[in-house]
């Protein structure tokens, strides 16, 4: 394991009851780069993300074998400090969830849990996160309105702002562009490119072209198995596997 490896999956197998979600997956995600995880529905992409921040705990039927190393610490181990782990990882899920709090409190949620009191610093942090998520201009006049009253696209960017609020070292995005318009998507993609200088980004996407545009490395999953992984350029242009070639060309999925 070299120093530029941030996350390493080591023979990870996950079952939901009888169903196998991931089978013997091993690959690495480099530090300070964008890694795309692509694959058809039910390939286990979301499960993979749930393992990185251990929210798989909340799936009552899930059982697993193998390890996931984040900073060389096995996070699938029983004794892992999940709370601390989750505060190092930002997670954005496909369906936008504005918490039933004000827009301000939505973003301030994690900093407050970590002990920050109301202060100019907190105000600045909230503004900063909202700016990063391209939402500040739209909501700066209604920070005290309910987050749940925003439109779907706005809520999605609110979710992104929230994920950024604890300055994560890893940012996971699960099909973040489903609920937002193409123009905003492009803007956020620009931000992600900028962010990768300081942050490791894991991008789960159904949009093959988005993966190609954004990512440095790509992993292709199908039916819970890792089919291929490598430099994005290589995976897309010179697929080693026939299945990968057909998927990236849009022949199935």
């Amino acid at each position, binding site marked *: 394991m070299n120093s530029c490896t941030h996350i390493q999956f080591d023979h990870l197998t996950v079952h939901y009851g009888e169903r196998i979600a991931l089978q013997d997956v091993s690959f690495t995600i480099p530090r300070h780069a964008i890694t795309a995880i692509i694959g058809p529905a039910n390939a286990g992409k979301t499960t993979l993300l749930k393992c990185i921040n251990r929210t798989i705990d909340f799936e009552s039927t899930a059982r697993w074998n193998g390890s996931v190393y984040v900073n060389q610490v096995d996070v699938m181990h029983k004794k892992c400090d999940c709370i601390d782990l989750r505060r190092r990882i930002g997670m954005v899920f496909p369906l936008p969830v504005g918490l039933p709090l004000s827009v301000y409190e939505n973003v301030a949620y994690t900093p407050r849990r970590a002990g920050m009191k109301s202060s100019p*610093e907190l105000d*600045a*942090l909230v503004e900063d996160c909202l700016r990063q998520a391209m939402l500040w201009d739209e909501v700066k006049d209604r920070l005290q309105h309910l987050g749940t009253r925003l439109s779907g696209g706005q809520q999605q960017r609110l979710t992104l702002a929230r994920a950024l609020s604890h300055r994560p070292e890893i940012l996971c995005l699960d099909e973040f562009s489903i609920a937002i318009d193409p123009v905003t998507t492009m803007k956020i993609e620009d931000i992600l490119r900028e962010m990768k200088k300081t942050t490791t980004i894991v991008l789960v996407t159904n949009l093959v072209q988005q993966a190609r545009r954004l990512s440095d490395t790509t992993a292709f999953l199908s039916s819970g198995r890792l089919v291929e992984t490598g430099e994005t350029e290589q995976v897309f242009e010179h697929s080693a596997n026939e299945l990968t070639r057909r998927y990236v060309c849009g022949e199935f999925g």
Partner: protein
Amino acid sequence: MRLPESDIQPPRSARKRWAMDLGESSIEMLIRLCGWSSILFVLMIFFFVFREAFPLIGNSEFSFKEFFTSINWRPTSEIRETYGVLAMIVGTLSVTGLSMLFAVPLGLGAAVFLSEFCTGHVKETLKIVIELLAAIPSVVWGFIGYMVVGPLVVEWTDAAIGVNLLTSSILLALMSVPVIVSVGEDSLKAVPDSFREASVALGANRWETIYKVLFPAAKNGLLAAVLLGVGRAIGETMAVLMATGHSTRIPHSLVDPIRTLTATIASEMGEVSRGSTHYQVLFLIGVLLFAMTFLVNLIADLVVRGIRKNG
């Protein structure tokens, strides 16, 4: 596009993590304890009621055979005390049965009306009225039975006295109907609309849909509704204490006065001395009641679980 540079950093990890962890685990423990307390309470109820009745085993003044088969309840007799509760069991069962005869058709009819024939404000209003019906305390039902329903029964039938089987059945019916209506309506509502649409598309009218599609689909829920009503009727105390007439005889007609298990405990518990056979027998009646309602509720629960499993 340039990312706004920022040196504002939230605290990486919470201050005083150990304090947070301690608070978290103690509140979690408290929550778990409270959650488990229900089991504890049920066991405690059984234990304490059973404990007071336990000395009856081996008590020479008391025989279990007599308890279940004799209709003679003479706990204060000078010559020989007898503790036969057969008449009260018959009383409880007859008043429960008769009240269900009124309550089941009324309750299920109302459930069907609320769920299938009526909408909007009428529905909301009726549901609220039925809910308020459930809130009327049983002692008030007893009062109504004694003062209002009883005299009416005397007037309309050849009853000698207003407090009797029929009066108390009417009261119990009115008291258990809200449960039947609300659980029944819930189970009809739980039948997917696609069932109704499919049935109507095949040319059935609303009643045929209800009769041939909804009833079979919701039969578990409706059965559970009836069982919950039965459970309530068996356990009801104050209303039957005031409106049954309190006579330990097996009823021969609808307007005979009767006595129930619950009313016996309520009326005699205040006057017995602790530890006497009479006292122990009253607790034994409590055990009997506990067992009866436990059984009814268990069956109702299994039946309801049946609906959840089979959709």
